[in-house]
């Protein structure tokens, strides 16, 4: 419990700034939406005239941006990216910092097992991604309601939030397992952020062309596609199963690697 509480305390400032960033993003996004919705010229026509690749990369493809639902679906792409970056850096950082700051020599001289250290830290990280997810949900519901002139979509937004949480868990575990497995954990943050970027690019790529449909299995961003969740109002059991399995594997690998590693001091 002591390590868990200390980690939460250590990260409270960082969590606060992430919260601010999300609020700022949603406010600016929704005020733009107001502009789109009220403008006479249709934003949808502008997007249709864009090359398919560009609109896919920007997350516009196949969305009605003049409806609040369509516009919010586009926002979730950016929210997923932000929360994914938060999770991946948090996962890598919370595990590796004891070694990069050389405090592991202090911590591991206490009567604690490596399993306990890892578990406490992952639990603290998990708590934070849930907090940030809830913050995002509340911010989204409030800002969308404030600018929305059509029927309320609050229940759709709430329904969508678990998809972002799944993504956060994915990237938290990717960051944490890099930090647990790599010999030089200080590179874990950079490398796992690279993985996040790569999977994001793959997911845009899948949107552009149908030829590489199988690639959707290679990127968690495609597992929980806001467009599908919004329109079909359901989650894919296949992708949930893949996520649960992958998280279990990453957790096991991190556990084994962390127990075996020679702490670098």
């Amino acid at each position, binding site marked *: 419990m002591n390590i868990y509480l200390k980690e939460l305390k*250590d990260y409270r400032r960082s969590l606060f700034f992430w919260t601010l960033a999300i609020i700022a993003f949603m406010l600016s996004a929704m005020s733009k939406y107001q502009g789109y919705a009220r403008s006479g010229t249709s934003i949808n026509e502008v997007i249709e005239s864009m090359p398919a690749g560009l609109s896919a990369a920007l997350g516009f493809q196949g969305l009605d941006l003049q409806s609040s639902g369509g516009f919010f679906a586009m926002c979730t792409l950016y929210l997923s990216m932000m929360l994914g970056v938060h999770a991946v850096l948090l996962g890598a950082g919370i595990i590796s910092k004891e070694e990069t700051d050389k*405090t592991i020599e202090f911590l591991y001289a*206490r*009567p604690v097992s490596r399993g306990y250290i890892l578990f406490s830290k992952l639990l603290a990280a998990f708590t934070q991604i849930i907090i940030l997810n809830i913050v995002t949900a509340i911010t989204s519901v409030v800002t969308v309601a404030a600018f929305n002139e059509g029927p309320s979509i609050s229940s759709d937004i709430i329904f969508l939030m678990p998809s972002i949480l799944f993504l956060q868990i994915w990237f938290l575990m990717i960051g944490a397992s890099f930090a647990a497995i790599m010999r030089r954990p200080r590179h874990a943050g950079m490398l796992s952020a690279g993985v996040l970027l790569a999977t994001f690019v793959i997911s845009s790529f899948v949107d552009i062309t149908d030829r590489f449909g199988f690639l959707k299995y290679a990127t968690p961003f495609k597992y929980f596609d806001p467009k599908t969740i919004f329109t079909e109002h359901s989650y894919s059991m296949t992708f949930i199963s893949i996520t649960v399995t992958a998280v279990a594997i990453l957790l096991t690998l991190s556990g084994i690697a962390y127990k075996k590693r020679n702490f670098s001091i």
Partner: protein
Amino acid sequence: MDIIETKNLTKFYGSSKGIEDLSLNVKEGEILGFIGPNGAGKSTTIRLLLSLIYPTSGSATIFGKDVIKYGPEIKRQIGYMPSEVFYYENMRVQELLDYSASFYGKDCSKRIKELSGLLKLDLTKKIDDLSYGNKKKVGIVQGLLHDPDLIILDEPTGGLDPLMQKNFFELLKEENRAGKTIFFSSHILSEVQKICDRVAIIREGTLINIESMEHLLQNNYKRIHLTTAKKAEGKLFDIPGVSDLKVEKNQVSLLYKGDVNTISRIIAQMDLVDFMVGEPDLEEIFMHYYT
């Protein structure tokens, strides 16, 4: 009973050697000095004992229990002070000590007060703002606050001023009188001489010798410089225990290990202008007696 026992403990970092075939024991209630030049493998040995790193081969036990298998259990009774002290940023001294105490499931506040009073450590300061010596003091307090049976110290005195060093040694002696076992690494022989019962000497990852302080003191290492009235002759010093002998005109310089009476009789035969006896540094001793 042996409090610490290592058997053929070996650690390679890739192809570079940390320590090799290191077997030593620390008896209950003794102060063992673990001495060797920088880079000899002292910290590696200690990190293996704390299972921060794993041995390439060999094993170690503390309180008769394997250090890897029973790590968390045996660490309840270990106080450790690392050579370089790194602490969490933005923490105050009191916070860090409370955090440290929180792992032992008992009230350590009285001991924290006692120790910090003795060392004149300000608990309200931020650790980042402390000087090197004051950080060392934090290290001492966090190592002792839970009243451990075994105290492991890695180069503990660096940065402490002489007065604090004296206080610190007094503190260690007091702990030792109360039955605590102390494992103390250092590269300064005179420091170890002040306090230890036995000394283990390590060089380039290998344990060279482990002997009692009495025995080591009999071996009284001296660095001797003589300035003679006439041209000096080296032949006189052709006795066991003399090494690094340099004779140049009327200057003689040598290292001596052995009974001081023997060497003083030889010197007494000479017509001297000047005469100096000093303590050689550890590097010199290693270079000339342990290669």
